[in-house]
């Protein structure tokens, strides 16, 4: 399963959500499908995409928040599972693309390549709904169920360690950040 195919599967559904991604391939691939003002790409601070999603979800309980995370990032902040589970906002969907690799620095294997199971960690931390999927059909079913459902979910998608040739895009970090904030402010005025 390729991450880009998963992203294609949920791209239409993401339009109505607030989306926070990690750095590297996830950010570049989502932008390659088309940047929207409701996307925020956290291009550093590995581990904090899930914390940012939690902050958004608690501050905006009426909006669906989707975090597009990775194994390398969430392994740097496993405590985030326990914090998300403690407050379990029903409007937060946490998707982890697990390619068992730190792809952007040359493909060094992460602990998930040696047996660490992120969905089991999430479940044991208290995340109410956790799934691991290995095929595009499973990803489609589970991601749509999570996005349309009303329960904090961690969905681990086992994907190939493959990504785009470059992670640089022409979207400036601060441009993205202020556009995202203005987009949220415009939602409140509607």
């Amino acid at each position, binding site marked *: 399963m390729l991450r880009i195919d998963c992203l294609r599967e949920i791209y239409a559904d993401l339009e109505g959500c607030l989306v*926070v991604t990690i750095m590297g391939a996830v950010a570049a691939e989502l932008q390659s499908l088309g940047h929207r003002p409701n996307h*925020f790409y*956290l*291009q*550093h*601070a590995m*581990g*904090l*995409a*899930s*914390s*940012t*999603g*939690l*902050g*958004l*979800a*608690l*501050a*905006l309980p009426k909006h669906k928040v989707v975090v597009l995370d990775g194994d390398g990032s969430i392994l740097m*902040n496993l*405590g*985030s599972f*326990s*914090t998300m589970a*403690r*407050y379990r906002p029903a409007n937060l969907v946490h998707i982890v693309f697990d390619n068992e690799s730190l792809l952007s620095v040359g493909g060094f294997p992460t602990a998930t390549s040696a047996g660490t199971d992120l969905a089991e960690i999430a479940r044991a931390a208290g995340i109410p709904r956790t799934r691991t999927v290995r095929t595009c059909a499973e990803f489609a079913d589970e991601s749509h169920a999570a996005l349309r459902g009303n329960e904090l979910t961690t969905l681990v998608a086992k994907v190939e360690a493959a990504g785009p040739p470059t992670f640089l895009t022409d979207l400036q*970090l*601060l441009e993205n*950040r202020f556009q*995202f*904030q203005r987009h*949220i*402010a415009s939602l*409140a005025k509607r």
Partner: protein
Amino acid sequence: MMARVPVSVASSKLIYGALKDCGVRIISALPETWLVHLIRMAEDDPEMTLVRLAKEEEGVGISAGAHFAGVKSAMLMQNHGFLAAINGIVSFAHLYRIPLLMLISARGTFGERDPWQTQGGNVTEPVLRALGIPFERLDSPAAVDRRIRQARTLSDSSLQPVALLLERDLMWEE
């Protein structure tokens, strides 16, 4: 159970009131002795969302998400927690111009009895300076309200982290 410790309830009330007055509605925190009353006040306040963290760096993400959402937040941490949050401060708050209001209990200074707190006290101010984070010490109840308001104002206008060091003379009644 919470041990009976001589942490100042009066100063904690002043600090909490000042945070409320300047619009803070989300507080992230990790417990530490000097912060126990502040955390309890946040927990008991139906207008406040308290996010208890596993590690202080998560608080940078919580505050960033809240800021994007238009909600003011503050972070309560010990100076060792500040040290644990540095990468998040640099590679998120500084990189993306995120205002953070950090209230940091300044352990390990003159009067510290706990040997394990003493190294953090030595390095907190030099690290704050090295990171270019504006900070002030809070050691007098009379200054609490104004300083917190000023810190919030600078953080919002400059879109950067600012720190207030909660000092022993303010927090500890012994």
